């Protein structure tokens, strides 16, 4: 039973991340997820300290604030400060991460958050952390009660604004010209990324969550020609990675989140080499045929 629950949690995280990840990868914002996932750390710690509890509402609020901040600062440094793009991302997220680590080590007694958890999370521990009512009814892992609503919110957002998101993703100038509030959608996406990061934080950690956002959508992008297909494929890839990764991690007695990422990476490699359209070997064969014919 706990096996199924762990895989379910990993898959739910994977699905939420993949859906958002498709838009991020297509909009060349992949590294912003890396930045946000590091930068929500101080937000989480400050929320812990202020509320003196692991109250999810405060954690999501804290993380959301810092996620927004990161996205805003990166943009501001580039636009107003004329700092080159790579450096402005690098400066913002390492700074927030450093502040987060200082806070974690400073208040390690007050808050129940260790440094390992920050980096790679613990899926098994999250599965065992169940929600018990006062009369002893077991409602299952607490995380599930967060992940399911979050996924519903993401799906609703994407379904309602599908056309708009599509236009913004593929032709931002056109989107602006027909009066779509591009900045608003940008920050809505950022907010959803921050919420997803903080919800999956304990399960997969700050660094590995980046893989959940980027790898399945990138794999799907190598195969799909349409946005819908890309989203569906990336969901399939993340579920397969969760399933295989979990069982491999049991066999090798190691971190399940780490193993899921490794499997996702290997799937990417496989598709990258063998994809019918843009695959490495296929391309080589094509260029070889081209040289022969000329």
């Amino acid at each position, binding site marked *: 039973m706990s096996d199924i629950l762990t895989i379910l949690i990993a898959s739910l995280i994977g699905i939420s991340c993949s859906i958002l990840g498709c838009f991020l*990868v297509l909009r*060349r*914002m*992949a*590294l912003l*997820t*890396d930045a946000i996932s*590091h930068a929500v750390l101080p937000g989480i710690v400050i929320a812990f300290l202020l509320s003196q509890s692991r109250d999810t509402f405060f954690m999501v609020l804290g993380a959301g604030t810092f996620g927004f901040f990161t996205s805003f600062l990166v943009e501001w440094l580039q636009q*107003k*400060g*004329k*700092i*080159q*793009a*790579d*450096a402005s*991302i*690098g*400066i913002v997220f*390492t*700074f927030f*991460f*450093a*502040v987060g*680590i*200082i806070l974690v*080590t*400073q208040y390690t007694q007050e808050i129940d958050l260790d*440094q*390992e958890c920050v*980096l*790679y999370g613990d899926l098994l521990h999250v599965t065992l952390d169940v929600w018990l009512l006062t009369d002893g009814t077991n409602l299952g892992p607490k995380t599930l009660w967060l992940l399911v609503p979050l996924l519903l919110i993401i799906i609703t957002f994407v379904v309602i604004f599908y056309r708009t998101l599509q236009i913004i993703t593929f032709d931002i100038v056109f989107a602006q010209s027909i009066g779509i509030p591009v900045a608003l959608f940008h920050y809505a996406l950022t907010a959803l990324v921050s919420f997803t990061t903080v919800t999956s934080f304990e399960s997969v950690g700050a*660094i*590995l969550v*980046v*893989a959940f*956002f*980027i*790898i399945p959508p*990138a794999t799907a*992008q*190598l195969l799909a020609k349409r946005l819908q297909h890309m989203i569906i494929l990336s969901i399939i890839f993340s579920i397969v990675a969760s399933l295989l990764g979990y069982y491999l*991690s049991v066999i*090798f*007695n*190691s*971190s399940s*989140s*780490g*193993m*899921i*990422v*490794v499997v*996702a*990476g290997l799937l*990417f490699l496989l598709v*990258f080499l063998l994809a019918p359209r*843009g695959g*490495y070997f296929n*391309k080589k064969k094509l260029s070889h045929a081209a040289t022969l014919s000329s």
Partner: protein
Amino acid sequence: MLNSYTTLIVLIGVILLSINCTIIGTYNYLQKKSLLADVVAHSILPGICLSFLLTQEKDFLWLFIGAFITGMASIYTIDFIKRASFLGEDTILGIVLSFFFGLGIVLLTYIQNQGFSEQSGLDNFLLGRAASILISDVKIIASVTLILVVTIILLGRLFVAIAFDSAFLSQIGISTKLIQLIISTLTIMTITVGIQAVGIVLIAAIMIIPPAIGRLWSYQVSRIILIGLLASILSSLIGVYISYTFPRSPTGPWIVVGLVGCFLFSLLFGTQSSLKVFEIRKI
């Protein structure tokens, strides 16, 4: 503070380390490849774990070789995918970074769950422990500093040329691949020897922020490096001082906070800053 011998060792180690990072970081910055340092730093973890698994001890040389191999592998994987696919560069960086780091975490947790007697301290590589710098580490860091300085004196001009006009370089018959390989090698060396002290995430900061500070004051490469060095040495002093005064505070993160302080100052007052908030208008 300097009375304590161990603190002095830590201080010297950290300063030399930030000198290394600033010098090589500047050349990566000029090529707009700052985030490559972040990827390499994450990719070193599986190498360290693998060589520990093979040798069962924390011998520096073997850890270094392992780190070097996976670090180099990450750089070549990025190039390989970039050449053969239409994926954006940021996506590729993200994939390679998180894949190698995931692999590292799998190996690290495997080692920890096996319960090898020698394994304690491997997790220092994640967040770093400047306090654990020994005199032997300082010697290694110092030799990297020496190698860096000599290489820069000999090849610095080529490193600049490759950032601004690599076509020119290949035209006069210099292999840009070779120069790129040298820069990559120096980057991996710097990160590998420094990672135990400041950790994976924050070593990237010490490579990225100083050149950004230098660039806010000058457009000459030598001055960018000098100003960057000034800022990173100052921040190292701040970091070591704070963690010495408040023993529970880690050194690495405070160095980064110091650097960001210098960066904000430069953003406001720097002669090359586009903000020029406090610039006195000439009439």
